């Protein structure tokens, strides 16, 4: 990575990547084993999920390829009927647990990233508007934020789920669940971004460089995007990282309450909901492996977020 060639135009500032690699952040990163290990785990898991078809043994989302008789095969033991052996065993439908986890993680991460992205975009836009313009825009947006805070995330999700179920055509129910989860989790999460962005914008907009930009006639949206936004990205990044972990857990929780991903296309959360039913019966692998994967994923992202917060907070140095 360090042998990245410099940008040919020497008059311009060093490339963004070069700047990043030279930055204090990267220096701190290389000094922190926690950060390095957790990011390795997170990146590893994310890659495995993204390229699930390459890593997986079977495609658990293709019901026609499943053999029910493979159900409940313990890890590393041949199935009593079919003689097939599975590295992490199989679940109640005869799906290979390892492959199902990879595909399930893909859904969990997709939901998590999309929800956070949605919350970040919504939060930044509304926060910038509120902070930059103030006045009634500010009152209106911040009051909306209060309304949002009035409803806890799980209730918001259940409400949206109920409404969406009523208005989406029946043929699209399968895909609907995922989008509803994204909408619900994202919608319950934008407020904190908006508040942080608004606060930072209030501080930044009175600084000299913004006044200067305004003086030379730059438009409001350009000022917000080019000048203010880059300066508030680090707190947003910190919150977004922690929100990602929260979103993945929230998806699992909603799945327990029956508003999660469908069982034919399970997310990690759905796998855990199904697996918890086999905790007492001795089929521990159906719960254990998905739960460990979720733990590893959420923990590494959380640790990374934690580290980022400390590293980006100059006062704690």
């Amino acid at each position, binding site marked *: 990575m360090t042998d990245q060639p410099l940008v040919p135009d020497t008059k311009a500032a060093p490339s963004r990547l070069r700047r990043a690699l030279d930055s204090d952040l990267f220096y701190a990163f290389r000094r922190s084993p926690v950060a390095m290990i957790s990011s390795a785990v997170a990146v590893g898991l994310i890659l495995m999920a993204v390229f699930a078809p390459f890593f997986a043994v079977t495609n658990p989302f293709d019901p026609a390829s499943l053999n029910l008789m493979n159900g409940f095969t313990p890890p590393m033991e041949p199935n009593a009927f079919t003689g097939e052996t599975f590295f992490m065993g199989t679940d109640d439908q005869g799906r290979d647990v390892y492959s199902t986890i990879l595909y399930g993680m893909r859904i969990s991460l997709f939901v998590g990233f999309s929800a956070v992205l949605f919350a970040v975009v919504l939060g930044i836009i509304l926060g910038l508007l509120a902070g930059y313009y103030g006045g009634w825009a500010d009152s209106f947006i911040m009051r909306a934020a209060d309304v949002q805070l009035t409803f806890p995330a799980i*209730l918001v999700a259940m409400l949206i789920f109920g*409404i969406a179920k*009523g208005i989406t055509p029946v043929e699209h129910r399968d895909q609907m669940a995922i989008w509803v989860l994204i909408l619900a989790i994202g919608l319950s999460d934008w407020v904190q971004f908006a508040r942080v962005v608004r606060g930072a914008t209030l501080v930044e907009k009175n600084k000299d460089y913004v006044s200067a930009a305004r003086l030379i006639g730059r438009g409001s949206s350009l000022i917000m995007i080019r000048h203010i936004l880059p300066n508030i990205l680090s707190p947003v990044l910190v919150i977004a990282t922690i929100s990602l972990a929260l979103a993945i857990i929230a998806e699992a929780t909603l799945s327990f309450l029956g508003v999660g991903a469908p069982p034919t296309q399970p997310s990690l959360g759905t796998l855990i909901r199904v697996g918890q039913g086999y905790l*007492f019966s001795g089929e521990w692998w159906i719960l254990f492996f998905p*739960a460990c994967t*979720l733990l590893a994923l959420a923990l590494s992202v959380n*640790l990374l977020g934690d580290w980022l917060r400390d590293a980006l907070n100059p006062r704690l140095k």
Partner: protein
Amino acid sequence: MVSFILKRIVQSALVLLITGAIAFSMFSFVGDPIDNMLGQERTMEDVERLRAQLGLDQPVPVQYVKFLKEAAHGNFGVSYRQGREVSEIIMERAPATLELAAVSALLAVVFGISLGVFTAIRRHGFTANLIMSASLIGVSLPTFLIGILLIYLFSVELGWLPSFGRGEVVQIGNWSTGFLTESGRKALILPAITLGLYQMTLIMRLVRSEMLEVLRQDYIRFARARGLSDRVINFRHALKNTMVPVITIIGLQLGAIIAFAIITETVFQWPGLGLLFINAIQFVDIPVMAAYLMMISVMFVVINLVVDILYAMIDPRLRVSAK
């Protein structure tokens, strides 16, 4: 000042109207209560009769206005499932949830603050880092799984604590309490831990970061330079100054605890409002769902309002910026 408070009250009422409308609009989409209520052997005449009787044949806005009018009188109608006044059921179930929430909040506050202070003071210590990491494990697993694992360990394998319910309760007036019997206190332990774990982590981390912030302020440095003992500095000065944001968060989290009780109560069959709500969803018990959601939003709005007004009284600057 008065106009600010008035404005806030009007806004809060508006918020309630909107949330109520959103909540209520959901109900026309979530299945049909009629089938549940009549069972397999019923005729179309039965269905039509019942539909008219319940007012379900009217348009949704009409049903909503009717609901609001009644709700203003504390009358949420009758539960389709239990055939009793919703307000009566809610009064009956509220103590279970409130006791659970109170104990969870207490656990979260006591352990959250003390562990937060500890990890801040010993910022680079091994134990402190261990606690910080361990606390992350607690929030990296879904609540329902933690509850079931606790049941497995403490009820099934060790047989120490009950796996469900409130144990024996004592009725004092309208309030049923589990605090006065041994089985009641025992039954509280696992659900309270399950419910409080997340808030505890939250408080602990907040206290830690606030504490670290305060500890590097000049006046603490001066105090240290004056030779005050660490104990006095840490507790008399630093902790006291971290408490304002912590108390705000605790206030707001109280509502979240009651909302998250839905999951804990489902896992532990805790006979409170959360379980009532989940049952209501399964049985499409519209009056109960509506009443629960209205109640939760009233609670949150009141908490927000009180916090806002308190701030306004303490900090006059906020009065200006709130315009």
